[in-house]
């Protein structure tokens, strides 16, 4: 576990790090929005937990999780205008895609690979989100390819003179790929309206940070592209929101891309095919769970007077109902027809 992010404030030469306390002041979110943000996180967590249950019950053959990343993603998402901005997500972005308009039913259709799954019609593994209508780009598995594509999305917006920003996400492991370098380089040369968010959970499957890169903070990589590199405590949704809002504003002003590093932890193994005990100590996992973004955000909202126990209880019951509904709906949905295996190779 790296030490950065653990405390929230990191002072890295040349890198702006957001202080979590500063983040609660100067917020342009009202209490209703703050609660909605929190409910989004609760929903993502609950959906994800249900998916693991279904996995253990043998109903879902693969699960890949955003647990531990919800705060970072919620804060990030709220900085965007989901009615026009683009999202090119990665497989842990459940919170983000829900915020962008995907429904729990859509997600469960995907997890259970049912006919009518709007992401891929059951063709892709869970975690491969996509919806043209919602401007969520269909994602693939090869890590970091989205980083080389996002500048193209933004280029098109810019060519048409649209006030549209593209958000793309990747894990810190993905920053080792050539495509990461090439994508950031492109976006910066052309000052494109892109926000690159690296969700740094310290491991690429089992490979720890120090075997992935020689810098201690992913945000330091921004220097190679003359773009701001901002590291922020990803357990604190509000701190992330503030940092992301600035990155989005910069993009909308035409000043170009930002590299935003959200320091998080993944609470689950890499996926349902992984066993993380060989490479992460249980103490390390517990230490981070004590800083669960749900706990941190609850406390922050309570301190702001934006959340009562009663309100949270209501949220939890709405969330549960929604997850139940999605599960029932998807379990009742038919599987794809075999003939669907060979359609949509080419147009027409």
């Amino acid at each position, binding site marked *: 576990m790296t030490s950065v992010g653990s405390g929230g404030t990191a002072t890295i030469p040349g890198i702006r790090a957001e202080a979590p306390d500063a983040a609660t002041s100067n917020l342009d979110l009202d209490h209703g929005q703050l609660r909605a943000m929190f409910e989004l996180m609760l929903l993502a967590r609950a959906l994800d937990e249900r998916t693991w249950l279904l996995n253990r019950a043998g109903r879902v053959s693969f699960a890949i999780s955003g647990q531990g990343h919800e705060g970072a993603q919620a804060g990030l998402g709220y900085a965007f205008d989901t009615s026009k901005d*683009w999202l*090119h997500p990665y497989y842990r972005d459940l919170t983000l895609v829900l915020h962008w308009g995907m429904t729990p039913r859509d997600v469960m259709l995907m997890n259970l690979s049912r006919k009518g*799954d*709007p*992401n*891929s*019609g059951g*063709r*892709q593994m869970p975690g*491969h989100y*996509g*919806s*043209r209508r919602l401007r969520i*780009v*269909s994602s*693939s598995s*090869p890590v970091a*390819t989205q*980083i*080389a*594509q*996002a*500048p*193209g*999305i*933004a*280029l*098109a*917006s810019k*060519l*048409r003179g649209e006030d549209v920003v593209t958000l793309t996400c990747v894990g810190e492991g993905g920053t080792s790929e*050539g*495509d990461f370098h*090439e*994508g950031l*380089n*492109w976006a910066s*040369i052309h000052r494109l309206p892109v926000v690159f968010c690296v969700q740094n959970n310290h491991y690429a499957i089992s490979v720890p940070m120090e075997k992935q890169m020689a810098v201690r903070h992913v945000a330091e990589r921004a220097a190679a592209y003359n773009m701001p590199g901002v590291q922020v405590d990803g357990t604190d949704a509000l701190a992330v929101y503030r940092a992301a809002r600035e990155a989005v504003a910069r993009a909308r002003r035409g000043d170009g891309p930002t590299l935003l590093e959200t320091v998080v932890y993944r609470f689950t193994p890499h996926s349902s095919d992984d066993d993380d005990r060989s490479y992460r100590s249980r103490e390390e996992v517990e230490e981070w769970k004590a800083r669960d973004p749900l706990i941190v955000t609850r406390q922050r909202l309570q301190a702001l007077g934006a959340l009562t126990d009663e309100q949270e209880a209501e949220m939890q019951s709405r969330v549960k109902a929604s997850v139940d509904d999605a599960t029932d709906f998807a379990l009742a949905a038919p599987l794809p027809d075999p003939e*669907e295996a060979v*359609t*949509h*190779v*080419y*147009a*027409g």
Partner: protein
Amino acid sequence: MPDKLLIEAIREGLFQEMAADERVIVLGEDVGKRGGVFRVTDGLLDRFGEARVIDTPLAESSIVGVAIGAAINGMLPVAEIQFLDFIHPAMDQIMNEAAKLRYRSNGDFECPIVIRAPYGGGVHGALYHSQSIEALFTHIPGLKVVAPIDPYDAKGMLRSAIHDPDPVLFLEHKRAYRALRSEVPDAPYEVPLGKARTLREGNDLTIVAWGWYLQEALAAADEFMAEQQATIEVIDPRSLRPLDSDAILASVMKTGKLLIVHEANKFGGLGGEISAIVAEDAFAYLDGPIMRIAGPEVPAMPYSPPLEQAFLHDKHDIRAAIERLAAY
């Protein structure tokens, strides 16, 4: 109709498509100020400006990646890879991304990009400026691959490719750029992708050839026909995926004999697939072995003239194969 060189036909096609549709943009290494190292994009920058004619960093994966992103967001990008030999860094973006986007999204997204790339040898380009590696791409469902060699075809197929809603790899034989001419209308027109062209009609033997070797095959066939009674059908598939296997099968069902000619090395080349299609679907019509003339099994074309010559085939080799096959 005016005669135009292959390079002129492609350039004119690019101009016209860019003029007709704002969504068309061109990007690649040296495509702007320099007008491309072969000068295919010469003049585009002056006419359409830096926003739509983009000199990119030296980074093929992002050239294709950016094209994909722009296509997802409504553009019709035409990316240039300076030499087909340098397309490898972009293979992930081409094969795993562009070619699979429609399928993986269950038809929700599409990827209307064109990737232009000069290919082929015989120009003292050595190992890395001579490659004919079309077979790596023709194996990939979701991708289209075309290799027109006739200027008329090239202009018409470029238009079709740009407006095709799927990703198209558009191969241009560099040896032909300034060597081949044909009548090319000034106005825009389309030549459909997926349709072969029969250049000679005949009854006794079918030759399927593409790229530069099509010229050699035609020369060999014409010489043979001038001297012998037999007639040879010569087919240029033009489009390598989708391949017009109907045209090839119909021809072989008529002639009973098939010779395939390509510049790429033989083992695993597209010629093998064509042979296999015929051996599966027109076996009963075959009067002789299916023969192939193709590049030798060496990593790529060498530089020094005697070595390059030893690598290349010409009409004499093809003529010899015709004679052997005709004798069956």
